[in-house]
């Protein structure tokens, strides 16, 4: 029956549905979440994936409830998973009113109404459901440990604690936890990136049986042809290569080909230059060919781009005269052939923490992605000893090993303490900038701290830096 509004009557406001999240969590890290997520797009475009050790697909289904009931949707998901040869024991499907809660239900295998009975370790599922905040992992671990020590065993027990004191103790993480735990006021405070299916670029060469070979150089020669095609296709689409895979097929028996070598290559920065990609490919191929001999001639080569990224410098190179951005990526890729990226090649990023030796971390990003410092930093020495070296004091002298240093002056007294939630129980240090005269009669300023002994850690005076 049609219903018509009178001219003065306002149309009814659009119905806002309560969010409903389905979570399909897989037991195996190798599960093809990308494929399942792509197939789930038929139900709703609002979906995201979790990768890593515990992969999962999250589907926000409130908008498709006019097509399917909740039970029907779950059944359809199960049918779909059967197509991927998943048995019922290989996955769990959970539904809840928010993404973090859905993940917790899937991990613990409980319905949403029983979240209060979930063990306290479920805090990490609520606070970092997509495993995207490694920087919080330590704090979350410490929070769980501390709550466990306080006798909290189940998530529901958190409601008994006065929130104000707990928030002041655990900080912003705890207030976020409470917001996600409260079923009555489910807030969509968790941002997630919508899943986009990966485009596949595949190039293949089937070799003439008369031209078959099994050496490195001809393989590279043909790989270069494939690579050039792939890069040109990527360039045309404004993309750059992050990861690719070279597959080599051999003809072991007549008319029967078998995949012999699969060489995955992943780059730290998106690549657009064939020379750089080929150099890495050569290293990998040389390693594979050196490791084992091909027992049959190569019949086909296939190159697939596994991951692409937007080619940011598509236009900017016209104005970037020294091509610094592209050059930086090339240098890192080049150095990465022998050194470990992120550990041996890195940039430094400041971390907001009191302990001086933890106040920076190794990262590798585009140079422009390193944040510029806006807050002032107290005076710090350019050379830091890690770990700090113990000193002995006797009257007006410090002894460092066998050397004796005369104390000339103490300045810049600074007291640093905190991080009691860390496993070592935190620290309390009093730092001094001390001018010392060495046995060779040279005067120099050092950064020295005094720390009280606690637990199993010995206290004393330590040399931490040299100005």
């Amino acid at each position, binding site marked *: 029956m049609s219903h018509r509004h009178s001219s003065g009557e306002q149309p009814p406001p659009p119905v806002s549905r309560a969010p409903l999240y389905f979570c399909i969590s897989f037991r195996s890290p190798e599960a093809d979440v990308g494929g399942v997520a792509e197939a789930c797009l038929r139900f709703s475009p609002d979906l995201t994936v979790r990768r890593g050790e515990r992969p999962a697909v999250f589907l926000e289904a409130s908008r498709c409830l006019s097509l399917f009931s909740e039970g029907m949707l779950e059944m359809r998901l199960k049918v779909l998973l059967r197509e991927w040869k998943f048995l019922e024991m290989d996955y769990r499907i959970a539904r809840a009113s928010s993404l973090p809660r859905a993940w917790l239900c899937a991990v613990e295998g409980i319905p949403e109404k029983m979240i209060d009975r979930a063990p306290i370790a479920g805090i990490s599922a609520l606070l970092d459901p997509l495993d995207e905040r490694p920087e919080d992992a330590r704090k979350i671990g410490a929070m769980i440990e501390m709550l466990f020590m306080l006798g909290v065993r189940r998530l529901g027990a958190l409601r008994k604690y006065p929130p104000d004191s707990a928030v002041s103790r655990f900080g912003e993480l705890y207030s976020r936890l409470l917001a996600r735990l409260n079923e009555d006021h489910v807030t969509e405070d968790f941002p997630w990136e919508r899943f986009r299916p990966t485009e596949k670029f595949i190039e293949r060469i089937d070799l003439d049986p008369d031209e078959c070979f099994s050496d490195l150089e001809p393989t590279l020669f043909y790989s270069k042809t494939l690579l050039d095609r792939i890069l040109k296709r990527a360039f045309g689409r404004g993309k750059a290569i992050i990861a690719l895979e070279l597959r080599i097929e051999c003809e072991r028996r007549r008319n029967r080909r078998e995949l012999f070598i699969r060489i995955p290559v992943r780059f730290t920065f998106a690549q657009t230059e064939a020379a750089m990609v080929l150099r890495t490919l050569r290293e990998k191929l040389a390693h594979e060919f050196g490791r084992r001999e091909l027992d049959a001639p190569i019949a086909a080569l296939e190159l697939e781009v596994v991951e692409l990224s937007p080619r940011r410098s598509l236009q900017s190179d016209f104005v970037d005269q020294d091509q610094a951005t592209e050059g930086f990526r090339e240098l890192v890729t080049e*150095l990465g052939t022998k050194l470990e990226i992120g550990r041996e*090649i890195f940039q430094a990023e400041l971390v907001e923490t009191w302990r001086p030796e933890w106040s920076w971390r190794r990262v590798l990003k585009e140079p422009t*992605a390193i944040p510029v410092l806006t807050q002032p930093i107290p005076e*710090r020495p350019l050379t830091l000893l890690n770990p700090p070296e113990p000193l002995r004091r006797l009257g007006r002298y410090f002894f460092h090993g066998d050397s004796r240093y005369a104390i000339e002056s103490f300045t810049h007294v600074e007291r640093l303490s905190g991080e009691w939630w860390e496993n070592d129980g935190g620290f309390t240090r009093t730092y001094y900038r001390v001018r010392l005269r060495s046995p060779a009669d040279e005067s120099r300023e050092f950064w020295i701290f005094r720390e009280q002994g606690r637990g199993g850690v010995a206290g004393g005076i330590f040399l931490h830096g040299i*100005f």
Partner: protein
Amino acid sequence: MQYLPEIATKRLTVDELRAKVGAITRLEPLPGWEVPEHELVLPRGALVELLGHGSREWLFRMFQTHAKTRIAWVEPKLTLFPPAVAQRGISLSRMLFVETKREWNWALAQTLRSKLFHFAVTPVDLIPAKGTDVFLRKLQIQAERAGTTLFFLSDADTPFFGITHRIRIDREGGRPEILKRKRG
């Protein structure tokens, strides 16, 4: 095609051609790095050995002066404290760190070859004892091509002939004392 006749009729006299050639700016080498406080200019592409306790502070004062430069810091074990660098007003986005002992010389050469960095800093201790001159000469060629000034941090005076400049800064805020200047 319509432009071709115009080009053909446009003939320049020898004087006009000379004037045009003269108008082209001569390709001068880029100026060196000025150290304003001490009226010192360090050439690009030089190998500079820095001695003395004040060398690091002096170096970072110079990096602060030349704010748009990029710096490569190559050490076998990192001793530099990055928050101290940020505290001295140098953006950490300008710096790339390479921490390696086994591939030190290769990494240093690659860093210079990339022509990305205006400065590179490394300790002097890892210069090989055998074939030092050849090694330093190779580095100097790379540094000159890239226009990178390569600083060697040193505790004691070294006998290496290939190092073009040797500067001692004895204390923080101290005046640099030039011990060696190979060119000019």
